[in-house]
């Protein structure tokens, strides 16, 4: 496994950190406060995890007044994602549904 893979896996190995990253991916940019409200851990712990994610290049931060906004850098995961097999499985599933439909249709 490459160094890049090692860093990504180690960074995501912690469940709390992974949940923070996943939430930023799904919901977009968030402040530390907003992330803490639903993280189940204290703000210093959230900040510590965000710092690790930032070092790994998986999030970036933006300062606005007293608030720091974090957003996911989805591109960081590109080395792990095999898109061709995912799209192929998408169409395979649709073909299954199509075949089921054809069986139900009138000639």
């Amino acid at each position: 496994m490459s160094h890049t893979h090692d860093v990504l896996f180690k960074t995501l190995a912690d469940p709390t950190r992974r949940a923070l990253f996943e939430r930023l991916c799904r919901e977009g940019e968030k402040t530390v406060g907003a992330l803490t409200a639903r993280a189940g851990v204290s703000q210093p712990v959230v900040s510590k995890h965000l710092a690790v994610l930032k070092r790994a290049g998986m999030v970036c931060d933006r300062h606005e007044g007293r608030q720091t906004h974090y957003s996911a850098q989805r591109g960081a995961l590109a080395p792990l994602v095999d898109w061709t097999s995912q799209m192929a499985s998408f169409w395979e599933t649709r073909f299954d549904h199509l075949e089921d439909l054809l069986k139900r249709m009138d000639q």
Partner: protein
Amino acid sequence: MNEISTERLSVVVERELAFPPEKIWRALTQPHLIEEWLMKSDFKPVVDYNFKLSAEWGSVDCKVLEVEPNKTLCYTWDAHGLESVVTWRLAPTSTGTHLRVEQSGFRPDQQQAYQGATYGWPKFFANLEQVLARID
């Protein structure tokens, strides 16, 4: 080293179906049937017609490029920054139809937007869980 960033790629899926091309064509082009196997849509088999495919995760903007009844159907497939083209080809066989779909046009910088915005992340995270369970 970075030449790959402009590469255009494609996915091809093919299947032998025990149904005539005319019947498959209906399933590919009639909105109430498209909805049953692909997504909700307002499709019309008219070149240059713009339509949408929609699902719970969002929608795909499409434009019809080519219509050759019972043989070829081609439309653009744009979603969340992804710009691609989907081409269906139907070829009659002795037992039914050889159906082929090709989706092409992804560039690497578009794959991420597409996968992040659609179904890729839940699946990715599920895969990741499995990988993580195997390593220390």
